[in-house]
Each structure stands twice: as C-alpha cells, then as structure tokens.
C-alpha cells in the first residue's frame, strides 16, 4: 500500500490531480460555512456584472446572482450527485455481478443477456428514456445516470467473482455448511471490494459529466437549484453577450474531470506491473549502441561476417544483464557455423545484435565490432542496416506462427521481402515469390501463396520462413533455432533442405541451436556458449568427438543416444548464473567438477591453436596432453 502511494505520487501529474481534487472537495464541503452571498437571491439591477468586481469576485449571472457562490454550491451539488450515482451504480451493479458470477449456470446466463441488451444502447438513449418516464429533475437524472452505468459494474464484477467462486477457500466454506448468502458476504465480497473501488474511481468523473450533461439539457436540476450543468445551460442564451457566465461553470467541470482523470490514470499506472518493468516500451528500429563504447577494428578481413568482442546488455531499471559478454566469431563464404548453448546463454542475442535487431530499450550494444565484408555495422546508420537486412544478411526465426504476420497472405509477405530491396514490378515479385515457395519444396505453390500463416502446418510455415530468408539471395543466413518448434521428421526435412540450399547457392549459415544432433548433421564449425561467452570453439567433428571444456562434455553427456544403450544420462547439477551478477573468472566454475581456486579469481582467456580454442584452465584430463592445444 505504501509502495502504491509512493508510485502514485512519483507520477507528478497524478499528484497534481490529487491535490486539485482535494482542494475542490474541501471547498465543496466548506461551502455552507464560507462567507458567501446567498446563491439564489436575485437582484436584476446587478445582472451580468463582470468578474473581479467589488463584492462579486466572479461577477453575477443573468438574474444578478453571485457567481462565486453559485459556483461553489453548484460544485457541491455536482460532486454529491456524481458520487451518489457512482455509489448506487456500483452497489446495484456489483450485487448483480456477484450473483451472476457466484451462482453461474442459468442465473448467470439470463442476467448477462439482460446486461448485454442494456449495453447495446448508446447510453444517452437509455438515460433519456428513463428521464422521459420519470420526468425531468435532478433526482431522476441521478437515477438515470446510475442505471446507465449498472451494466458496466455488473460485467466487471461478474468476471472477478467467477474467478473467485471456484477458489479453494470458497469450496471450503461451502463444505463447512455455510449458506450462499454468508459465503458471498464473508468470502466473496471482501475480495471483490478493491476492484469495485477502483472501478468507481475511474467512473466517477464520467458520472459527474453525465449528470452535468442532463442538467445542461434542462432535464436535471430545476431552477432555482443549480448544479454546474444547469448553470452552463442557463448561461447559454447569454453566451455571446456575457461569456463569463458560461466560462465559470464550464471551466469548473473541466478542472474537476481532468483532475479525476489524472488521478485515475495515476492509479491505473501504479497498479500495472508492466509499466514498472518497462515492458511496454516500444523497440526502436535498430538496437541502441553505446556512444561511449570502445571501438574495435574489424576482425578477420577474409571472413564474410566477423564479430569481435561483441557486448550486448539489457538495462532494466537499475539492473544490468550482460547477455553477451565479449564474443568473437567469424564465418566464411559457404561455411556453416553452429552456435550451441542452453537457453539464456546469449546465443540468440549474439545473432540478433548482428543486424541491430535486439529489442531496445532495454537492449544496448556496449562494445565490439560486427563487420560484413569489412564494413562496420555496429553504430552504422539505420539506412545502412536496413539495406543489409534481408538483402545480404537474412534471418530465419524459431516459431514461425509468431514470426509471420498473421493478417497478411504469405505470398504478400514474400513479395514484400523482395520489393523492400528491389524496385521490380509487382507481378514479377509475385512470380519470384512462387518460385521461392517451390524452392523450399512447398507443394501447390501458387495456391499456397494465397494462404494465411494460420492455415499452414508448422513445417510448412517454417519453409515459408526459409523462403523469405532466401528471397534476395543473401550471403549469410542467420537461423535462430529454426527447427526447435517442429517435430523430429519435419525437423530432419528442414535441415536437409537448408543443407541443399547451402550447397546450391554457396550460402554462409550461422545456425543457432541447443541440439548436438543438428550440429553434427549440418555444421562445419561450432562455438559453445555459456553465460554470454564462447567457452569452446572448433571443427564440429572434432568437438563432438573430443570435447575439451568441462561444460561441453557435460552438455554432451546429457544427450541420449539412440541404440547406443548403456550410458548413463547426466543432468548438469545447478543452474546457469544470472547474467546481471556474474561471478569473477569462470562462469561455469560453480557447477564444474574440475574446479580449482584459480578458476574464480582471474579472467580466463579463450586460448587455442589452429582451429580449436577453449576457455578453461583445467580442460578435460584426457586432452590436456593433446599437442594441438599446447
């Protein structure tokens, strides 16, 4: 609760709303004891006195009545009516909602049908009908406004009640023999009241506005009694000659409703946990790059794509998650590089950083270099990045149901990939799209192009994802776990397809996976990642046959072997470290069987010769003597 108020008042607008509202309420409460003129005493000799004159701070109206006094009395009346209407609507509406939600079944059905009917009306029609039946008057207007808002409460509260009515404590109460009425009062109601109060606070502004509206139409408060709405309504005929009589009550309504809205927004924001975590931020077109980063000269000039000392962080509130902590990688034309690691090891973030696709905020690239054919991409302009995206460097993502646009036909999505980079006629692009679908072995490509993603199977969707990546004959494809969401036979087909395409077109592929089987089948080289760093790298056959880093060998021990039989499957004890608080030295030390004190008190380099390197002081015993490593 205290945290709630702290949050609410950190929002300066909400605080301002609260203060203004408090002042208005205090003034309204004090009105009877303030030294004011009688609001209803007419004095036609003093009509339409301008504001700021002696004796009449806000002037007088068309009957010479003191406007300040009428304003305060009117405010008092408007607030009282709005609050009463909100209270009545909340009470009746909640009662209906609780009954419908608690008893469910037919009761619920009948009640909610009625509520839906009432909501089929534009609210004013209902209010007008009620006032027409009961006759004009403030009390009848109040009833009309309350009645119009009953369905809103009934529907909201029913929803909450349904979720409570099946909780254990309600069942327990029922089993202990309590009657329905007692259960509702003692078990359900206390849990629903906070929701009712919040719903009331958000509608009270509306209620004030609606009753003021009815009074403005002449259907609410009747002379001489006046709320803000009828003051405005009476002043309307003198609008042109004496606008101050309209502006005074109108501005008051504006101030009250605005203060309530500010306060309501503040309450809503303070209660919404997503706003605190920054989860509602819009990701920028390209990942932010730290301006104060230490720049790196690009790595391996012969490589197609070379990554050097790449560091990508997520900054969420005051925590910094170092998702990628200095990664070096390179891939040559026609080569397939695997990146393997557990979830959260930083392999996807590494891949997304290449083209600046890490969501930002909260992501930010803080150091390093990514070079495509020698051109630096970290810190490059959006224009440069966009020109490369999908044209020279293309992505294939996991879970094609979420990664394809649900409302566009797949043919159009493919066409767009082409036309984003090449100004060719639509017809030609369509033709090319169909060829692409054929290239990824989709049957009936012409008719399939007209399908929406949800009409295809998972395997077909992934083929579309691959077709999209191939659209502009890229040099590099970065495939982020493209087969994880698929079943095994489909997975094999997709891998075979990728392999064929690679050989046909001389593509370089960076393949991210957590599956050693995939690495064995497809990759020439593999890099093993742990906690945002590469711990071992080398030719895949070499690494699969001869893992050197304790993590790699433990990871491989987790893989079941088909028909291989008697080996014991071992899970790695413990969990990967949280990357906002990495231990010094080796991040794997905590879970490592070979750990020595040296492991955790110094930075450990990735060292190696030739094609193999490892980041470990005490690699697996059998390989320490391996000449290649020394």
């Amino acid at each position: 609760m205290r945290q709630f108020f702290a949050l609410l008042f950190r929002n300066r607008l909400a605080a301002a709303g609260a203060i203004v509202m408090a002042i208005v309420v205090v003034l309204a409460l004090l009105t009877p004891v303030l030294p004011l003129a009688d609001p209803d005493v007419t004095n036609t000799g003093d009509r339409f006195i301008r504001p700021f004159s002696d004796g009449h701070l806000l002037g007088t109206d068309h009957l010479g009545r003191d406007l300040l006094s009428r304003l305060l009395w009117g405010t008092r009346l408007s607030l009282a009516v709005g609050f009463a209407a909100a209270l009545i609507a909340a009470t009746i509406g909640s009662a209906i909602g609780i009954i419908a939600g608690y008893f469910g079944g037919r009761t619920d059905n009948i009640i909610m049908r009625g509520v839906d009917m009432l909501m089929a009306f534009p609210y004013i029609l209902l209010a007008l009908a009620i006032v027409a039946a009961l006759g004009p008057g403030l009390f009848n207007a109040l009833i009309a406004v309350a009645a119009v808002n009953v369905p809103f409460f009934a529907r909201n509260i029913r929803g909450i009640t349904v979720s409570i009515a099946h909780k254990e404590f309600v069942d327990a109460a029922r089993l202990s023999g309590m009657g329905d009425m007692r259960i509702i009062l003692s078990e359900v109601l206390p849990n629903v009241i906070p929701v009712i109060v919040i719903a009331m606070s958000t509608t009270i502004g509306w209620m004030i506005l609606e009753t003021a509206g009815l009074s403005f139409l002449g259907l609410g408060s009747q002379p001489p009694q006046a709320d803000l709405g009828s003051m405005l309504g009476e002043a309307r005929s003198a609008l042109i000659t004496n606008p101050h009589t309209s502006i005074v009550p109108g501005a008051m309504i504006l101030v009250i409703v605005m203060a309530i809205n500010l306060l309501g927004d503040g309450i809503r924001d303070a209660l919404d946990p997503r706003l605190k975590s920054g989860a509602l931020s819009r990701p920028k077109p390209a990942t932010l790059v730290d301006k104060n980063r230490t720049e790196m000269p690009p790595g391996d000039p012969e490589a197609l794509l070379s990554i050097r000392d790449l560091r990508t962080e997520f900054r969420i509130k005051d925590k910094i998650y170092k998702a990628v902590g200095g990664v070096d990688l390179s891939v040559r034309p026609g080569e397939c590089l695997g990146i393997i690691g557990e979830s959260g090891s930083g392999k996807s973030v590494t891949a997304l950083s290449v083209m600046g696709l890490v969501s930002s905020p909260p992501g930010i690239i803080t150091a390093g270099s990514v070079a495509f054919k020698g051109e630096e991409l970290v810190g490059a302009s959006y224009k440069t990045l966009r020109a490369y995206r999908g044209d020279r460097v293309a992505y294939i993502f996991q879970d094609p149901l979420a990664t394809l646009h649900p409302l566009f036909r797949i043919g159009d999505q493919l066409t767009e990939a082409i036309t984003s980079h090449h100004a060719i006629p639509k017809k030609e692009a369509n033709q090319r799209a169909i060829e692409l679908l054929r290239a990824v072995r989709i049957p009936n490509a012409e008719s399939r192009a007209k399908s929406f993603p949800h009409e295809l199977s998972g395997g077909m969707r992934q083929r579309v994802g691959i077709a999209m990546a191939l659209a502009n004959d890229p040099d590099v494809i970065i495939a982020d776990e493209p087969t994880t969401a698929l079943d095994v036979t489909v997975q094999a087909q997709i891998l075979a397809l990728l392999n064929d395409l690679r050989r046909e077109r001389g593509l370089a592929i960076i393949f991210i996976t957590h599956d050693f089987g995939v690495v064995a089948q497809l990759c020439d080289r593999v890099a093993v990642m742990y906690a945002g760093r590469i711990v071992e790298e080398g030719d895949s056959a070499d690494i699969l046959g001869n893992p050197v880093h304790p993590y790699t060998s433990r990871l491989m021990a987790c893989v079941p072997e088909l028909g291989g039989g008697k080996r014991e499957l071992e899970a790695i004890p413990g969990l990967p470290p949280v990357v906002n608080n990495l231990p010094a030295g080796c991040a794997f030390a905590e879970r490592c069987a070979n750990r020595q004190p040296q492991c955790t008190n110094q930075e450990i380099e990735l060292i190696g010769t030739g094609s193999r390197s490892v980041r470990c002081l005490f690699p697996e015993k059998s390989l320490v003597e391996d000449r290649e490593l020394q």
Partner: protein
Amino acid sequence: MAGYIFKRLLSAIPVLFGITLIVFLIMAMIPGDPATAILGSYATPENVAKLNRDLGLDAPLWQRYFIWLGNMLQGDFGRSFALNRPVLDEVIERFNATLILAGTAFILCSLLGVIAGVVSAARQYGFADKAITFAVLLGISIPSFFLGMMMVLLFAVNLKWLPVSGMYAIYGGGDLPDLIRHLIMPATALSVVAIGVIARLSRSAMLEVLRQDFIRTARAKGVHEFGVIWRHALKAAMVSIIPVLGIQAGFVLSGAVYIEMVFQWPGVGRMLVDAILKRDILLVQGGVVFVAACYVLFNIIVDVAQSMLDPRIKT
C-alpha cells in the same frame, strides 16, 4: 462472407426485441396516467377514458407490448401529439440530420484518433508523444457542450469565420458548401472526446503489437520503418482498435444530443429532449427504439469489418 453477414443479422433479432422490451418497460414506469399526462390535468374524465381506450392503455401490460410491437413491425410508430404527425416520419427526418453530424464526427475521430495514437506510439516518450498525450488528456476531460460553446465564442462571434448555429443558412443557403460551413464546428466539438479515447487506445494497442515477433521479422526483412509502423503494426493493431471504434460510435451518437442543443442542429437528439420536456411519450419511445436499432445494425457492420480484417475469425 455472405453467410457470416446473414448469421450476424439473425443474431441481432433477439437484441432488437430486447431493446423494444426494455424501452417499453421503462415507459411503463411513468407515474400516474399517461392519458392525463398527454391531455393535461384539466381534461374531463370522459376524455381521459376515451384516450386510454384509443391508445389501448386499458389492456394488460403484456398485450399492450405486443400491440405496440406489432404496429412498429408494420411501420406504425404511432403519432406525435405535440407535432401532430406520424412518429416515424419525424424520426427519420431528424435522424438524417443526426447522421450527417455524427457520421462526420465518427469519421473524424476514427482517422485522427488512430493517426494520433500511431504517431504517439511510434515516438514513444518523444516530443510528439508527450504533446499528443497532453492534448488527449485535455480532450477527454472537456465536456463537449462546453467546448462547443467556446468554439462558437471564438470562431463564430470573435473571428466570424463560421456560422453560429443551425444546419443551413436561412437565406440563400442549402447547398453543400453551406452545409459544410455549418458542420465544421459541431462535428469537431463532437469528435474531440472520441479522438482522445481512440488515440489512447490505439497508442497502447500499437505498443503491444510493436513488441511482437512478427514486427522483428518485418525489420529483419529490411522493411522500412515507415512500413513497419503503418503497414505491419497498424494492421495488427486494428484488430483491437476496431471494436473500440464500434463502442465510440455509441458515444458519438450520445454526445450528438448535447452538440445538437448547443448548435441548434435539427437532429434526433434535440427532438428527444424537446419531446421529453413536452411529455410527448410516443415520440420519445419511437425515437429511442429507432436510434438504438440503427446502432445495433451499425455494430454488425463493425463486426463484419473485423472479420474481413482478421482471417482467423471463423466466418
């Protein structure tokens, strides 16, 4: 698609019945004797009894409902005693004027609201976002009738750019430019609150969509940011914006009542208020049923639009 439209039309029938029933029950709450209400307290008992018989008011409640309903289904909404003409004629004539006003305001608020929301989301926390957020807050807080009055003061009285009120100029008016000149202020005043609500909702719908994976895919393809926002993100966001447009149409229609009073617009809202003050019950009853029915039909159009946008909805 045709099947879906037919199905939705069919499902509207019970709602329409419900509406007539609700209106009828509300009108049955009228305290005292409607005939006395119509004839005034000086009427002779014979006249009251005769009118009661003529109006069928001596029959039991449920019979009266079905008679009233049956007459309405045959296009007979009764006669307005104050205007001495058939209710339906009057309502349709007035509803035309309201439709011009509310329809313009609805188009305005849909376009401007969505555009403001998208710009606001695309520039989240930037200057444009803050300016729009502030304008939206002001817009949803100002009573439309007060805004209308202030506009009259500024644009009609002080600047003399636009006519003060009415739908056509009394002398020499009647053509389209004349109508548009008269329409600008009331339509704007009517749309302001809805613009605010729609902008707010569009902003949050866009922010929700912009975090989705398919937006990342669009960016990875190299789609220009303009296309990412206005084509990919907006199309997906429309799925949650369209139902709100339907709800806002109801609010625009409601607000039209106030705006028609401020600008002396000869619409159905002003007709209803006048009828209430004159206790012309049949006119109120017929007007409410007619407008509510139109609103229900409009919501079917909204549903159909939604199903055309989103192929995942089973039609």
